[in-house]
């Protein structure tokens, strides 16, 4: 779900992705995942291409996209930060973390910071329940995140990190 490697919408690429996957049984979710992985979201233009390939109506494809929290129809910020809202993290202080994150970034859930750097999303459980509060940035999960740790992580997202080690 890391978005920094995503590329701009390109119908030929999308069609190639669709053609590769369309004969799988129950191909719609694999196709939507592949499209979103490539372009960071599922653009409106993709819906028609998918519908045509799978012999579905656009409404049916749209219905599936809108059902699942994971799929998005608008381009997110460069980084997607997900905060776990589930009970195990609540027991370790995630409500305070949520409030801090929203205030620090100046956005609510499902919104993107003005500089288009970070999109904030809720998530219900990352499976890191003994060491919460947990957040996910791209495919990386972070444990024991308090306000200070959150600020450090966000600071690190402002510039592309150079790995020294």
């Amino acid at each position, binding site marked *: 779900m890391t978005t920094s490697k995503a590329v701009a919408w390109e119908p030929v690429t999308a069609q190639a992705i669709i053609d590769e996957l369309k004969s799988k*049984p129950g*191909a719609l979710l694999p196709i939507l995942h592949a499209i979103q992985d490539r372009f960071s979201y599922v653009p409106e233009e993709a819906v028609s291409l998918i519908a045509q390939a799978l012999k579905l109506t656009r409404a049916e494809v749209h219905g599936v996209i809108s059902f699942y*929290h*994971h799929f998005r129809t608008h381009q997110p910020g460069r980084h997607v930060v997900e905060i776990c809202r589930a009970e195990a993290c609540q027991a*370790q202080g995630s409500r305070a973390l949520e409030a801090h994150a929203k205030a620090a970034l100046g956005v609510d859930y499902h919104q993107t910071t003005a500089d288009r750097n970070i999109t904030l999303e809720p*998530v*219900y459980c990352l499976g*890191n329940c*003994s*060491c919460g509060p947990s957040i996910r940035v791209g495919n990386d999960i972070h444990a024991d995140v308090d306000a200070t740790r959150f600020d450090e992580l966000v600071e690190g997202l402002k510039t592309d990190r150079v790995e020294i080690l």
Partner: protein
Amino acid sequence: MTFRIHVPSDTTAKARGADRIARLIEIVAKEHKIDVEVRRNGTRGLYWIEPLVEVDTDAGRYGFGPVKEGDIESLFAAEFWKGDVEHALALGLVEEIPYLKRQERFTFARLGITNPVSLEDYQANDGFKGLQNAIKLSSQQIVDAVKESGLRGRGGAAFPTGIKWQTVLDVESPKNQKYIVCNADEGDSGTFADRLVMECDPYMLIEGMTIAGLAVGATQGYIYCRSEYPLSIENLNQAIKTAYENNLLGADILGSGNHFDLEVRMGAGAYICGEETSLLESLEGKRGLVRAKPPLPAIVGLFGQPTVVNNVLSLAAVPFIMDKGAKAYADVGVGRSRGTLPFQVAGNVKFGGLVELAFGPTLNELMFEFGGGTRNGRPLRAVQVGGPLGAYLHEGQWDTPLGYEEFSQKDAVLGHGGVVMFDDTVDMSEQARFSMEFCVAESCGKCTPCRIGSTRGVEVIDRIREGKNVDANMELLSDLCETMLDGSLCAMGGMTPFPVQSAMKHFTEDFVKNAASATQAKEV
């Protein structure tokens, strides 16, 4: 001489910095000219000591943890690679740590010992022995063994696995195609045992599903894994690829002529897809709307064909049963809960992690003798067992033995074995509100009690929390809970009331307290 060092690689160990520790050890070892081989194991599941660095010695593995970046120099100064040395983080022999030693790791026997995607490691530790035995048996004999083991659905519903398999074995498939579907949509907060299977011992799931395929005559399997588990998907895919290369999957399994194909499918952030019929809809590429039952998925399942839908832990228990024997599994447990359950101790807990035990000990033993009480030292007040649809238990219920029937007698569920602990700062009316709010977010929308009831539930609890007509609204909330319980199509709407009702019943003061303070505020 090369010293072998193990650094864990599961999500929680990584989230606590294990990748960086692994790299630092390699770099510093090179600087000190010490010949070390850093291997990545899964995790032992003892999360408060992660990252747990282990060192191979003739006497066994010595552990150091939790290792932070700043500890590396002192570990090298202490010559930690020798194992039995003095250091503030030295834990001695890992297998002697009481938390681990006191467990009965049937399913998780290899956890943290092997490299997750190493087939060699898996086979060197009893891997694929169950499949080798199963191949020599008839389908009926495999099903009988699973019945005899007493294994019940570990996803939470606790339906006897062997009976489900028998149904699928007996029914004719119109298209001559049956399926094994693994429910790896582990959405319950406080649970991570499925994740541990997939991240740390993926071949075990492959083996269990292949045996299930042999048992019912299915040639295609799907693992439906949630998108929140990227590392599970990565490790499963790598293990599946290796299994195909070694004739452990495909057209000629272990040269027996048996056929079984396996594919991982990714969910898309919908909790409801953990409900088996919703999961099947999702696999078919549709909205995850719950199906009415009957027909059972065992008879009309994926793409309309007979389908075994089992939780990860149910399928992961099968290799043990086929290797060590059904009796070995059934010999432990309590009442009708046979075998072991990998409990997950989470939330505000001092020693959180995976605790695989035979059914029978009490919740208290799990939370205090293993968990060590709360992480911040405050008194424990409420415990939610069995995920977001499980009841909150108060102190008077913590002596309940861990067993399916024992819990249902207390109007609670054991579910997937997740235990989430809350200290005395918890506001139970807020927790009740969250249960309803979660149902609003995650209801598939098919039936009214769940779709509308949850929204009304949030509103009523908000009024109670604001102190408005508390008595009348408490009655209304009780009534709403009954409607959802009786009128919902599946467990989502049908069990969302459990945490709400338990909070209302056992923590009434949190509902009334808010009312009183609201009145006082008005008077002032």
